[in-house]
Structures are given as structure tokens and as C-alpha cells.
């Protein structure tokens, strides 16, 4: 009889269960093997995202990975309406606060968000319980270029090492008003503090962004000595690191794309691009990927009040622009990531693209698709278990598996 999985037990079992046999060293099998139990979950529909939807199928997991997927019951002891990969949010906006952004300068590419990651925050647990298994960690957008973002799992032991998926995965920056808010010109008696400086306007924000890359180019040519942050900017210029810019309104999106074009930045991700629907050609031409903010009943998004149209996702799908959806770490269940695909479908997007937008597409945008984002044998056992079909408003998240551990059990109340 199969029993439920338990990664913690595996970790504890290894040292005590060992049967060391020194004679058997000519094989590469270890005789010290942990007891590996496995679990299977069956569903009316299994959405692999990278492949077909399996009607009446199962997923089997073992040792924290997916080991089998197929039609049939698979010997499952849990049955749900649908299984999708664990959801991925690239913009959950869960940061430890203003003391994770180094505001002494407006451009701090070398500061790492992972160094301020707080695994103890209840907000990660809240994300996990509504199906988000992988999320991005970024510094707050008080700087024009804030630093390096990371990707973590939303659950597991409360340490950075255990939760880290990838550190330094993108360079974070922001267009718009947030980086300039808090700054003010020096008064008549002169500057009185750290925040009496540029930028106080969008012009200033753009200037700082351009200056950062301009100086990086100069240093790359050897015209100046290296400085902190140079390495990260050069990586962006070389296409080794994507640049992820917050840009919600049309002019901010344009500014971001002009920046990309001026410096030939190969990879651009636009975060919170609510008004992406207003500049379709520019977007397509730039090849940028987009992370959309949550759909809003008021229309105005939280990114400088950019207007988030209901058919934003549908339009981007039609244009072939790679887009991800975001739940912004919301508390309200009507705004969380798992319900965003339903809004996207309501606005005209296909169910396939809407579901991909919360799973495989964000994984691909950050180059993590070998580990997460779809249901394939060998990938991390991160599953989201639903009471209905994703993309329908009546479907809720009733179970979550993270790294092979059943964190939310659909069978319990």
C-alpha cells in the first residue's frame, strides 16, 4: 500500500539506514540507500503544460521528483479534479522591506536580493498554500537599478540554502515614479539629507538608467576603472543576465524599450506592464517578455496606475509575446495567482496560454524550465491540485505538493 511522501523523513533516514559495504565499490550503486516511498495523485485532467492534457491521468512522485505521468489511476490514493505544475509568480512583491534596498545610490546593480531574503515570512507560506510553489525575490523598487533578483521555492526548511532555486537570476530596475519618490530637491539652505538628490522625475530616472549602462560601456572599453555593479551591467549588455524593468504605463514601457534598443540589451523583461496592449508593435519588435500585473476590476493597476485591460493577455497571445501573469502576493483570494488565468480566459486568452502564463512561461523567461514549470519526468515534484479546471472561476486550489512533500492535503479540511 502506498503511503504519503515525506521528504523530511528521507533526509533523516539516510544516515541511520546506511549499510556500508566496502566490497561493492566497483559499481556506482551505493549500498547506503534511503527508503524511497512514492506517491501518486490522479485527476480528471492532468495538465502537463509542456505537452498534452491527459484525460483521467495520474502523476507519480518519488524522492522529490516526478517519476511517472500517464493515463489511468496509477495506484493513486489521492484524486482531484485537475493537476497542474506548481504555480510560478515572478512578481509577488514579498520583500523584507526598505532595508533590503541600498538607497545611498540610485543604481546599485551589485546588491543581491537573496541576501535579504526572509524565509520566515508568513507571506511565503500564504503563497504556497494557494498553489504558488516558486517565486521571485526582488528588492523594492526604490532604486532605478536595485540589484540582483533571485528565485526561491515558497516552502521547505526555513533556510536560504534549502529554498534557493537560483540566485542572481535577473538585474532588477524600475521605470516610472517609484524610484524618484522620496527624493526632493535641496531646499534654500542646501541639502539636509540623503534624499536631496536626483531623480525627482521620470527624466531623472531615465537619465540614471542610461548613465549606468553608458558608464558600463565605457568601463568595458577600458576607459575607466572597474567599480561595484559594473560586472552585473556588463552581464546584461552581453546577454548573460536578463534586465527586468518595472514599467506599467505606456511611456514607461516605451522608455524601457528605448533603453534596450539604445544599448543593445539582448534580454528584457517588463514587469507590471499593464499598458502593454497600447504598444503592440514596439513590444513585438523588442522581443521583450512581459509579466502582467493582476487583473483589476477598477482597471487601474498598482504600477503607476497603468490601465490593465481585460484582453491584455489575449492581445499578447495573439502577438506572440511571451507573457506571465502575477498575483502580487495578494491576500484576497479574488486576486491571487491561481485565479489570474480565469481572468485572462475571460478576456479572450486561450486556456493553454493562460495556464502556461502561471507555469511554464515564467520558468522559460528566467531559464529555469529544466527544473520547474511543467509536469515532466525528472522535474521537481511541485504540483498544484485543483477542485475544478484551471481557468474556471469555480476552481480552487485544494492541494499543493512542494519538492515531493504534500504540503496541503486535499483530503483534510
Amino acid at each position, binding site marked *: 500500500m502506498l503511503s504519503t511522501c515525506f521528504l523530511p523523513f528521507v533526509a533523516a533516514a539516510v544516515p541511520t539506514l546506511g549499510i556500508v559495504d566496502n566490497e561493492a565499490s566497483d559499481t556506482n550503486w551505493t549500498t547506503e540507500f534511503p527508503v524511497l516511498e512514492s506517491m501518486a495523485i490522479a485527476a480528471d485532467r492532468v495538465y502537463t503544460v509542456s505537452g498534452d492534457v491527459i484525460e483521467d491521468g495520474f502523476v507519480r512522485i518519488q524522492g522529490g521528483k516526478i517519476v511517472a505521468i500517464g493515463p489511468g489511476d496509477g495506484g493513486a490514493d489521492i484524486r482531484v479534479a485537475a493537476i497542474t505544475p506548481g504555480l510560478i509568480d515572478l512578481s509577488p512583491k514579498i520583500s523584507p522591506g526598505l*532595508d533590503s534596498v541600498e538607497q*545611498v545610490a540610485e543604481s546599485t546593480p551589485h*546588491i543581491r536580493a537573496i541576501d535579504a531574503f526572509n524565509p520566515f515570512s508568513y507571506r511565503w507560506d500564504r503563497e504556497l498554500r494557494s498553489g504558488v510553489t516558486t517565486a521571485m525575490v526582488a528588492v523594492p523598487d526604490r532604486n532605478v537599478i536595485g540589484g540582483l533578483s533571485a528565485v526561491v521555492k515558497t516552502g521547505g526548511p526555513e533556510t536560504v540554502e534549502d529554498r534557493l532555486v537560483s540566485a542572481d537570476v535577473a538585474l532588477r530596475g524600475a521605470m516610472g515614479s517609484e524610484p524618484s519618490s522620496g527624493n526632493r530637491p535641496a531646499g534654500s539652505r542646501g541639502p539636509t539629507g*540623503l534624499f536631496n538628490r536626483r531623480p525627482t522625475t521620470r527624466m531623472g530616472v531615465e537619465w540614471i538608467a542610461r548613465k549606468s549602462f553608458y558608464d558600463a560601456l565605457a568601463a568595458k572599453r577600458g576607459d575607466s576603472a572597474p567599480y561595484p555593479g559594473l560586472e552585473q551591467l556588463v552581464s546584461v549588455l552581453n546577454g548573460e543576465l536578463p534586465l527586468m524593468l518595472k514599467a506599467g504605463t505606456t511611456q514607461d514601457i516605451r522608455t524601457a524599450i528605448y533603453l534596450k534598443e539604445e544599448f543593445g540589451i539582448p534580454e528584457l523583461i517588463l514587469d507590471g506592464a499593464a499598458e502593454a496592449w497600447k504598444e503592440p508593435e514596439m513590444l513585438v519588435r523588442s522581443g521583450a517578455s512581459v509579466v502582467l500585473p493582476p487583473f483589476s476590476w477598477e482597471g487601474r493597476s498598482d504600477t503607476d496606475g497603468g490601465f490593465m485591460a481585460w484582453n491584455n493577455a489575449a492581445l499578447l497571445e495573439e502577438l506572440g509575446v511571451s507573457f506571465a501573469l502575477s498575483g502580487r502576493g495578494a491576500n484576497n483570494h479574488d486576486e491571487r495567482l491561481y485565479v489570474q488565468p480565469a481572468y485572462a480566459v475571460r478576456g479572450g486568452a486561450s486556456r493553454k496560454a493562460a495556464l502556461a502564463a502561471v507555469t511554464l512561461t515564467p520558468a522559460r523567461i528566467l531559464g529555469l524550465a529544466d527544473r520547474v514549470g511543467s509536469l515532466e519526468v525528472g522535474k521537481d515534484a511541485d504540483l498544484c491540485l485543483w477542485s475544478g479546471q484551471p481557468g474556471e472561476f469555480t476552481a480552487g486550489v485544494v492541494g499543493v505538493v512542494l519538492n515531493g512533500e504534500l504540503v496541503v492535503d486535499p483530503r483534510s479540511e
Partner: protein
Amino acid sequence: MLAVSLLAALPLAGTPLVANGDDAAAPAGPLTAIRAEVLHLGDGRHIEDGVLILREGKIEAVGKIEVPEGAYVIEHDGHVAPGFVAAHSTLVAASERGDATRAFLEGAEVRFGFDPDRRAVRDALAAGVTSAVLSPSDFNVVGGQTAVVKTHGGEWLQEQAHLFVSLNSNSANSNRYPTSFQAAIAEVAQRLTAGEGVYGKAAQGQMPVLLAAYDKQEAVRAAQLAQQFGLKANLVGTTLAGEMLETLEPMGFGIVHNGLATGATRRSRHALAALSNSKLPMAFALTNADTFRMGAVLAARAGGDAKRLFTALCHGGADAAGVADRVGRLAGGLDADFVLWSGHPLDLTSRIESVYVNGELAHGGAQ
């Protein structure tokens, strides 16, 4: 008065002079013995019907021993405990503890800002705290060097006791560089690596460090920094340390707990109880004299280890302060800093009847 005149008649008589604990005055003779219902030694042990013998401001002996001839005896129908030692305090006035000039003030010595006549110092003494670490404010990343002082008589136990490093949201504040936690840690690490002056002493383990880290992830990072540089460190202000024992116990750094007030949440009481049930060294910080021992009381009631909690108030504090060879226990050779209680110190119905520092009556008793 009676005691003094009897003392004058002391010389050849073999009978010990006896005075009642309630109205004992400062003993004028060289040798004093105090017999009490219970003597708390400060390290978790206690002695019933024990005797504490003092000579010239020091403890000569303690135990179930005979009262020596010629000793001035105080009979106390209550408990005697060592004076409490606070491993961190706000006894220096706020305006004097934090210099806003720079975020790194390793050369600032807090002792120069100490005013022994402050009300807070007298209140601390009246609450049984006889020695305290004077700490700088936590809004600088490196606030300065602490000192350890007695709350009566102003004697310095240590003038440059610890390097006080603050790695939390108060020090990573938005007024000046560094505004971010990451940069604060990087700057401290860089100074410890360069190893000049006080940082060199800290990195070599010659000067202990107090690390103020409040939230759990701040504490983890501070502890990792301390481990990286082999610092002799105590974490200050990590009130939820009891929830992170798996991470903190292997590292072994002591925790200086801020204590608890009467309205403390269940979570905080249970965290302190869990900490007391662990093996981590513990001490308490003095922010409010009235509630200095309250944390120990509430945590004991919440299932904590009462002996370890009480030890944290005395010997634990002395150990974290680096002055365990002078204060914190009733043991031969240590200073005669002790308190006469009407009952068990962790019983809230107990009162302090008198406080002695260096064998001299400092508070209470017959005035």
C-alpha cells in the same frame, strides 16, 4: 544602632553577634555571615539553611557551613540571591548613547556617557540589578564599545567590554549609508577582514561582540557572520530565538533576551520557554527595571526551565558580560553583590528587602 554598639564590644567574646535580616545595617566589622532560608548560588543550585560569609566586600565562603567566630551575623527569613547582571542595558541616556555622525563608530566608548545618578540606575539597583552592561544605541551599525558597571558606587568592572554591532532594521535605516541590510553586513565583514584596531581584536576573539539582531533572518545572518569570523558573540534582542533552535543551537552563540512585559503574547512566552529548555547560553537585557525579571517568571510559567531562566538573570548575564569571575554567583572569591528577598526571586509576591554591593548596603534594609 544596636548592632553598631554591640560591635564595639566585640573583641574577645566568642559568641557571634546576631541581627535580624530586616533591620540589618551595613556591617562594620571585617567578617559578616548571612544565614538564610534559601541561598541561590546563581548557577541553578540553591542551598537551604545556608550561610554566606563575606569579608571586606568579597564572598569568602558559601554553603551549609558554620558561622565563624567573630562574625556579624544577619539572620534572614527569606531568600538570598546574587545581584542580577544585565548583559545589555539602556542605562546610558538615549541622547548620549548614539552618535549620529557616522554609522561605524568603533572608537566610541559608551562609558563616557554614563551618569551614575540617573533615576534609571537607582531603579535598576532597587530591582536587584547590581551590574549592567552599558550599550550604545542600535541605530549605528557599529555603535561603539560597551562597558560593565556596578549600579551602586559606580565601579567599572570592564571599561572596554564588547564591540557592539547592530545588524537589524534600525541600523539599516534610510538616513545614511548603509540603508540596506546587505551593505551593512558587507561593510562589517570588510572591516573584520581588514582586522584593524578593535575589529582585529574582535576577529581574533580577544574582544567579545554583542550582535543586535531582532528578526529571525537578521539573527541567522548575524550568527553566520559571527561564525565566519570566529567571533566570540552573543545575539542581543533575538526574542524569537526559541523558534530557531535547530539553526542556532549548533552555532552555540548565547542569546541576550530583552525580557517580557506582563502583557506578552503567548508566542513570545513560549519562544522564551523553548529557549530556556535548550542548551544555548542565555542572559537578559535591562530596558525596564520593573520588568527585568518578568521574562524569566512568565517563561517559567509557560513551561520553561526555571533554573536556567534564573541563572540567566545572574551568572548568565555575568558570563555574557565577560565578568563572571567577579559577579553573578554566590561563590568564594567573587564580589559580595547580593540581594535579600522575602521569598523566591521568581515569585512575583516576593519583595526585595535589601541590596548589597561590594558587601555594603546599597538599597533597602534599615535606613
